[in-house]
């Protein structure tokens, strides 16, 4: 791994963490309307994968999409403005947290429908293949989402047509309050790859270096015309399913074990031991991110609301 990539990786992981912590506070204070699903704990997944992507490559994201957006190069200010429902947000206040999109950097949208974005990613890959553009499309999704029929249809289609797709499954082991192994008989989602005769890989989703390396292989494999990979990242969400969720259902002991594997700590330790990061860099990165975040909140707060009549624009081209 190059040094610059390592720094980008830590920067984005840190940005996700503090962005989400800020959103948590703002939401609790009632400054953000709607629903919010935080990405804290899963930073290594989005960042490890997206560190292999260029702006031309595509991603589709999920209801828990802030992390993917930051990892793919989304601006904190326009993201924050969108969460504030402001006109300056990426979606001009029409989308909100669950629909963040930035097509100019290949972000084909977060999605309020589990696995809803997966076929869209397959289509982007088809488009890349037809036009010989060499772009890859990464479909992010959670463990729960892989039980949607569209997951199966998408993997089958991509495999049959050898499309440049990576099915990036963040297996945090719960979909809302339901433990994956109670609604699926095989805890390893990557094992499904056998049915499509494609690679299925399991990686520690708390370890950004491991994710980066496995994602690299999958992306290169896809770009070389070999077709898709199912990349399963075992991970854990540190917060509730959505902010304000009433029920608690996870086991404290398990929770504590996972929290020990904090992806930011692992990233720091590993990247330092690889000689790619040092304490001074970390301080620099954290300060610059913090500054951008403060500016983003400021920008969002000071941005204008949309006008009511703006509701009638943007429907048709």
């Amino acid at each position, binding site marked *: 791994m190059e040094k610059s990539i390592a720094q980008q990786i830590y920067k984005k992981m840190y940005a996700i963490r503090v962005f989400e912590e800020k959103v948590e506070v703002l939401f609790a204070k009632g400054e953000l309307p709607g629903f919010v699903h935080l990405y804290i704990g899963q930073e290594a997944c989005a960042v490890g994968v997206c560190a292999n992507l260029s702006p031309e490559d595509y991603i589709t994201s999920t209801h828990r999409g802030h992390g993917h957006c930051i990892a793919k190069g989304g601006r904190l200010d326009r993201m924050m403005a969108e969460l504030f429902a402001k006109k300056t947000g990426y979606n001009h206040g*029409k989308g909100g947290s669950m629909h963040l999109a930035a097509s100019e950097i290949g972000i084909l949208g977060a999605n309020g429908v589990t696995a809803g974005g997966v076929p869209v990613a397959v289509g982007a890959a088809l488009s890349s293949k037809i036009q010989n553009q060499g772009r890859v499309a990464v479909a992010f999704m959670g463990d729960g989402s892989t039980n949607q029929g569209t997951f199966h249809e998408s993997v089958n289609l991509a495999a049959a047509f050898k499309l440049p797709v990576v099915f990036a499954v963040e297996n945090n082991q719960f979909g*809302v309050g339901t433990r994956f192994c109670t609604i699926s008989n095989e805890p390893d989602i990557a094992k499904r790859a056998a049915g499509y005769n494609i690679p299925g890989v399991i990686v520690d989703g708390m370890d950004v270096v491991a994710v980066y390396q496995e994602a690299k292989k999958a992306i290169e494999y896809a770009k070389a015309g070999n077709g898709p990979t199912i990349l399963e990242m075992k991970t854990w969400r540190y917060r509730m399913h959505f902010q304000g969720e009433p029920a608690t259902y996870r086991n404290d002991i398990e929770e504590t074990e996972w929290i020990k594997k904090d992806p930011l700590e692992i990233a720091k330790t590993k990247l330092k031991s690889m000689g790619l990061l040092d304490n001074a860099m970390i301080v620099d990165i954290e300060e610059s991110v913090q500054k951008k975040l403060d500016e983003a909140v400021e920008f969002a707060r000071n941005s204008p609301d949309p006008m009511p009549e703006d509701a009638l624009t943007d*429907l048709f081209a």
Partner: protein
Amino acid sequence: MRKISYSEAIAEAQLQEMQRDEKVILMGLVQKDPYGSAFGQTKGISSVIGEDRIFDMPISEQGYVGAALGAAITGMRPVVELQFQDFITIAMDQIVQQAANMRYMFGGQIKIPLVLRAPTGAYLAAAAQHSHMLESWFAHIPGLKVVLPSDAADAKGLLASAIREDNFVLYFEHKKLYDKKMDVPKEPYTIPIGKAAIKRVGKDITIVAWSFMVSKAIEASQILEKQGISCEVIDLRTVSPLDEEAILKSVAKTNRLLVVQEGYWNSSVATSVSALVAEKGFDYLDAPITLITAKEVPIPFAPVLENYVLPQTNNIVETAQKILNKI
């Protein structure tokens, strides 16, 4: 009488029906305690009934709605839930091509004692994929009964009827109503499916509404009353089959019709109510039939935009004034 909320009333109806009939089962996402469904609509049930008849499903709407159908035609009486009505888009084949057609297509061989419940509606900054009002789609399809309770007491009685019914009933709960409390009898009772309720008696104009719009229509009526306009508010309760008689009777009295619908205009229940009266009650009419519906865009996230798109009480007031030439 004790006051309970709309979501508590829904949970109570399901619990009581499960106690009454062991064939009743629940299927959906996070149905069991401690969750008890996303808005608490099954809260407390598994703790009382046990876990044998409540099934927490994978996120496979087409698959598990189809499984509920399979269970319904082989002896069970499933109540199957979608976490949001919007996700019904995933289960449409099993609902429309399979369940709605099945009894008829098989020449009456089977019964389908199946209820599908789902939270519906907007006004929550939940944006385009979590705000739909899709009752009109299902009203369009023969073989389906479509119920939308507008308050907690109706919610309980209509759900009991739906569960006891030997046909497939779609039961859509409005998210803005879940927390609303009111007097609800403790003992089980039923409210007939297919019958509208006059929620307010009046003489100058008939306002037809259902689901969350009923409360907006009543609010508007209270304002209008002070201006000397007397509104009759009809809560359809069931949008398919339509209670034609109740609608026509009211318009025969008031000679004016305003329909208030949260969903979109084109090909909707609101246009059906209009078409019904324009065909069978034409001679009663002293004024054009007016419809208030959502504006024709997806539901936007920003509250300022969302409020602009959706029907509001003041729209009803102003439109009623216009119809009665009081503006």
